[in-house]
């Protein structure tokens, strides 16, 4: 049963991803990216990490996709359907990405994972509380560093996009 759900989710995700990179309209591309992120959130649910699935929907679909669509709309005259959306290296790029994917898949299929594994897929437990505890005990320094990074990104984005004061006066 879980395998059927996994294949359905993977099919949705991969098809949406292929449509995303081949779509000529960049706006459709953003919507397909939202579908991909939903599929990945479903994969996280299959992996019993509900907190991560929630974060995926909240941050990626709720914030990043909306921000991307805002920027697409702000620059819309350039990204119309009549402008060519792909550069001339499409054939070598296809070869490179296909070869690297096949390489990774071959490496995965040839590796014997089972005798290194400590446990199989564990029973369904809600590990949100454990994530919270880990964040405030063992991972307190990276947690604080990431908050400083987000603050820096916020200020940097405002500085980059805000108009110079000298221009207005």
């Amino acid at each position, binding site marked *: 049963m879980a395998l059927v759900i996994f294949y359905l989710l993977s099919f949705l995700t991969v098809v949406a991803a292929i449509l995303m990179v081949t779509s000529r309209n960049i706006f459709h591309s953003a919507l397909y990216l939202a579908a*991909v992120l939903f599929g990945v959130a479903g994969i996280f649910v299959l992996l019993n990490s509900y907190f991560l699935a929630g974060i995926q929907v909240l941050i990626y679909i709720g914030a990043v996709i909306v921000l991307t669509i805002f920027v697409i709309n702000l620059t819309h005259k350039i990204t119309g359907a009549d402008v060519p959306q792909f550069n001339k290296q499409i054939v070598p790029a296809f070869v490179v990405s296909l070869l690297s994917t096949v390489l990774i898949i071959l490496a995965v299929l040839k590796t014997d994972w089972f005798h290194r594994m400590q446990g199989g*897929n564990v029973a369904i437990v809600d590990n949100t509380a454990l994530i919270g505890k880990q964040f405030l005990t063992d991972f307190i320094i990276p947690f604080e560093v990431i908050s400083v*990074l987000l603050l820096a990104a916020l200020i940097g984005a405002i500085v980059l996009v805000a108009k110079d004061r000298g221009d207005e006066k």
Partner: protein
Amino acid sequence: MITLGHYVVLSAILFGIGIFGILTRRNAIGILMSLELMFNAVNINMVSFSKFFTPEGVYGELFAIFIIAVAAAESVLGLAIILAIYRKKQTVNADEMNIMKY
């Protein structure tokens, strides 16, 4: 029974599609979106390896949360740079951005 290989193969396919998108898109926003796709492939890897190798810990998920936070910051800064370039040069195509080229 879903094995670890299923997740890693799915992640590899998503990663390859992301590489293809980054290499072929002209639009810089499209490149950023393909980058998000690759981040998601890596996140699937992180969480599945953590689930199968250390089932009692949550280290992969913690790393995935850090990746999501850094990806959000990166996306915000990238879009801000794209908007600033659009204001100056009236273009968002990556092959027309050469103002730092000597």
